[in-house]
């Protein structure tokens, strides 16, 4: 039997001995987003300040060289990377790695260790921080047109403490959307999106993982453009339109509903292309949550051919739905042929096309 000889490598031993404290320094830290102070509504074109109140708990492990990482999920149209300014502040004041300063935009180059994103297992996975955020957190209720933009701090000496700090985010609000659900993520560069339960001693038990926390918060945008979309609602469609002129409409206006049978899924024709008759099947959602449906394909629901495979119908919604003393909040539409054997809904979604009020 051949005996395996144990070779003592003193270089390995010394390196391991020296690296041991570093392992402790980098693997533990608990983060929690205690609160997000963000306006519920903001005017398009304005600059808004969002404050994240962050709790960092080092879990009794003296820690240096931490980089706080912040993620913001906002509409692409807002161009957060160009317009936002992030600063962080905390009682940590150990020179030269103080716990305050301006945060740096992650440009996604991954040319340094802390710029390499870490996935759910906490290891570098070749993806950027933003790509990891998109993969793991997604876009919540937003139907799309959102992006994650990431920032990191300078190195911070967190020491052996539990400390609360703030991250101040200056955001410029765009005009292309009437509402969006904004996302805020906080983590540390050496753990990323690592999912791990809290330890008993931790004070940050409100976060999904020991190493990160996030929150979604809806913001309504006033003064948005007339064709602005609500990102928290269904995806917009070109198959149907609702309008009452250049300045928008409410459901107290005389509105004109348009249906383009040529605008189906990915630009293909709809099933009502070349149809001889098209009927509008509409359901009104009222302020008290009830609905009124007018889906009987009666004569009053018949649309008028207004162009090449385009149809229109002009109605005053309160009278059309027989609603009085109630506010109509949404109208849900699909379009059918005379016998109802062909139904066209929102292409790619299979649901009614939903329209809310748009008024500048």
């Amino acid at each position, binding site marked *: 039997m051949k005996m395996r000889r144990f070779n003592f490598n003193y270089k390995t031993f010394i390196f391991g001995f020296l690296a041991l404290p570093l392992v402790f320094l980098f693997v533990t830290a608990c983060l929690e987003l205690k609160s997000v102070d963000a306006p519920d509504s903001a005017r398009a074109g304005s600059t808004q300040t969002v404050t994240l109140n962050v709790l960092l708990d080092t879990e009794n492990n003296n820690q240096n060289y931490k980089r706080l990482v912040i993620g913001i999920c906002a509409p692409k149209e807002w161009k957060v990377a160009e317009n936002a300014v992030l600063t962080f502040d905390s009682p940590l004041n150990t020179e030269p790695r103080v716990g305050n300063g301006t945060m740096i935009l992650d440009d996604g180059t991954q040319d340094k260790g802390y710029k390499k994103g870490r996935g759910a297992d906490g290891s570098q996975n070749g993806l950027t921080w933003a790509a990891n955020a998109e993969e793991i957190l997604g876009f919540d209720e937003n139907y799309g047109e959102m992006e994650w933009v990431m920032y990191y701090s300078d190195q911070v000496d967190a020491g052996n403490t539990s400390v609360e700090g703030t991250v101040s985010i200056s955001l410029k609000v765009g005009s292309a959307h009437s509402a969006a659900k904004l996302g805020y993520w906080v983590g540390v560069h050496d753990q990323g999106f690592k999912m791990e339960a809290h330890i008993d001693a931790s004070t940050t038990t409100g976060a999904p993982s020991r190493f990160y926390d996030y929150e979604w918060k809806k913001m309504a945008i006033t003064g948005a453009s007339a064709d602005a979309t609500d990102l928290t609602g269904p995806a917009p469609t070109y198959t149907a339109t609702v309008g*009452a002129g*250049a300045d928008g409409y409410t459901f107290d*206006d*005389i509105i004109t509903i348009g249906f383009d049978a040529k605008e189906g899924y990915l630009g293909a024709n709809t099933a009502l292309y070349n149809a001889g008759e098209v009927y509008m099947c509409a359901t009104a959602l009222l302020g008290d949550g009830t609905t009124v449906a007018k889906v009987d394909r009666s004569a009053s629901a018949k649309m008028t051919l207004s162009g090449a495979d385009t149809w229109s119908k002009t*109605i*005053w919604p309160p009278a059309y739905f027989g609603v009085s003393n109630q506010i109509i909040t949404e109208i849900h539409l699909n379009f059918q042929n005379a016998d109802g054997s062909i139904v066209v809904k929102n292409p790619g979604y299979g649901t009614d096309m939903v329209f809310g009020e748009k008024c500048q």
Partner: protein
Amino acid sequence: MRNILFLTLTLTLATLVSCDEADTFDVRQDALVDYVTDINGTWTLHSVHRGGSDITSHMPSATGLTLQVEAGSFTLGSSNLPFPTLGNARTPFSSGSWSFDDDYQPTSINFTNGTDVVVTSLAMPLYASNNSSMGLTFSMGCGATSYQYNFKK
């Protein structure tokens, strides 16, 4: 010399003859009196404009709207069209009383149900009597979207 004197005398006479008394006009006594504008009667909607565009043909039932106006009261006929008094911003009402902002040279009509007052602009001047056309301009939902209803009697 005698010719010059004769010529001068002739021209002077001609000048005097050409002068006449200023024209005089008979002015009816009642023309100097302001009369209250009268719109009593039944008005029928003739055309509907939204944001300056005529959308009458898009709403086949549009011309069915009637507005019955009597001394101080009005009644709106049933229709599928909005009217300033029917918006959801207040309790809608289709009858009530009305008044001009100026009985003699009105620019707007105030419709009221006794609680709410809805001010509606007149799109064209109204005469004291014998009015056969009346235009109302107003907004309903989105404030920047304006409507003009043209009524005929």
